[in-house]
């Protein structure tokens, strides 16, 4: 089984639209949405949740009022400004390091598990989907991403489909690093804008840093053909394969309006054919580890 992770660096380049379109070409695939702080794949795939699990992220300091003498030690030591003047812990700032706890002379601070989201296993029309939702403002440490991936992997092991398809998060930080763990290919969706290129280069470096082979899809390639040419030149230099180029098309938007993927909306159209070609290249190109 090959695990293919779709990422982009910059948001809004079309990761989710393309992931969903690829998924809809299968009958019994496992797809995972690792963008746990703004997940969107469910909008196109309409999952019916069959299992849900509470997610406990990091720890949180709690001050026991009756023991606290307001000596100030915790405020002095906290590197994250999480203890207020009235000795309340700001849950948004506390990173759960526990330094306040073991340094409190009165032993008035304990560390508790913090509920910070939920993860789900759901049925979708093309198979099974694993997804999650982080509570707003929580730290996205990568642990929830790792949980989504672990569940997806366990499910995919027993399936006929040779592919585990993962919709990744934007950026280059913890969530992306956690998504890269164990991926066989990072499929980068970029667009020929200055910012799209800038962010693509950074995310390629991250993938290569973690030794995950990279392939690229250039979305909305006709928005700026000069930039598209530059992307191709750049990728050739780095010996990175371009799996496909997709034009800017209102069709994707019309499909989204009906909560369908392009291949469900109009299977005969040129854009849908391009996605099919990408699927074939994606399957043949990436070697399972």
């Amino acid at each position, binding site marked *: 089984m090959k695990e293919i992770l779709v990422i982009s660096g910059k948001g809004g380049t079309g990761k989710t639209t393309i992931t969903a379109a690829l998924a809809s070409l299968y009958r019994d695939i496992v797809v995972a949405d690792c963008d746990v702080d703004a997940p969107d794949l469910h909008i196109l795939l309409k999952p019916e949740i069959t299992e849900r699990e509470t997610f406990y992220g990091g*720890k949180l300091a709690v001050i026991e009022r009756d023991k606290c003498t307001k000596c100030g030690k915790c405020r002095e030591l906290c590197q994250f400004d999480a203890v207020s003047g009235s000795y309340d812990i700001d849950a948004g700032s506390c990173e759960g390091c526990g330094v306040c706890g073991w340094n409190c002379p009165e032993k008035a601070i304990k560390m508790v598990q913090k509920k910070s989201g939920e993860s789900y296993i759901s049925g979708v029309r093309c198979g099974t989907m694993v997804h999650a939702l982080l509570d707003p403002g929580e730290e996205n440490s990568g642990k929830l991403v790792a949980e989504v991936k672990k569940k997806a992997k366990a499910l995919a092991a027993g399936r006929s489909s040779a592919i585990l398809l993962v919709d990744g998060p934007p950026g280059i930080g913890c969530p992306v*690093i956690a998504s890269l763990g164990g991926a066989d290919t990072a499929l980068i969706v970029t667009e020929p804008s200055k910012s799209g290129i800038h962010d693509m280069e950074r995310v390629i470096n991250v993938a290569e840093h973690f030794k995950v082979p990279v392939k690229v899809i250039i979305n909305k390639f006709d928005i700026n053909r000069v930039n598209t040419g530059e992307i191709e030149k750049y990728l050739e230099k780095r010996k990175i394969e371009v799996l496909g180029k997709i034009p800017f098309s209102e069709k994707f938007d019309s499909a989204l309006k009906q909560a369908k993927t392009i291949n469900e909306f109009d299977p005969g159209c040129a854009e849908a054919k391009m996605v099919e070609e990408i699927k074939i290249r994606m399957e043949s190109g990436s070697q399972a580890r």
Partner: protein
Amino acid sequence: MKKIAVASGKGGTGKTSVSVMLARALGENHRVGIIDCDVENPNCHLFFGSGIEEKRDIEVFFPDINPEKCVYCGRCQEVCAFNSLIVLKDKVMFFPEMCHPCRGCLLACPAGAVGEGKRKVGELIILKETDGIRLVYGIMNVGEARSIPLIDSVKKESCAGADYIVLDCPPGAACPMVASVKGSDYVILVTEPTPFGLYDLKIAAEAVGKLGIPSGIVINRSGARDHMIEEYAAAAGMPVLLKIPFSRKFAEDYSRGSINTRAFEGLGVRINKMAEGL
């Protein structure tokens, strides 16, 4: 000085375009600073031609372990909540990307072997002022996991003398977005009239609501389906500040590194009006 944060749940909705246009509109009558808080993928600078005025390293604490003093007792590993230290029998391994610089190891070490080290996690860059606008941005090193220390560093740049500060925030609704938005006077949430845009807008609005900061909505790529956002805005009691119609010309200009408020009639005027209203 007023601080206006520009955020969005979904990536790619046009935060950077709105930040730059807003700063330029405000810049006509005021001194303005833009702080690009999206340190993982900063983009604002791509739309400014001005040269670099100042560049410095952003550093965070790391345990600088003195092998002469270390007794390999394992106490630092025990107190580290993030598993960034592993003590072997004659060596201590440190994993920088795991470290939340809490200094617990430094406090705990019985042998005084942990020193106050500094390691570079990225750079802070200030561009030369152009048209009354000064841009500050941070850029995180590839392979680093935590963006919060960089966000805190760029936010500390007060852009002395500025009347307005526009903060271009990272996408999402998790801690980097919240850390960027915190302390602002107003939050502009940029969205697009698609089911993706609406869903992520709701999550972002909830995160901002928790902070108690007033907020309003900008609908980018506005068109026939604006009602889906407008209905939510009305129900949530959030004003729709501005609609930017979809324009292929605008997208093409953007792809070349230019944000063109003249791409369609009246956009500049509407942005100025929004800026004054804030």
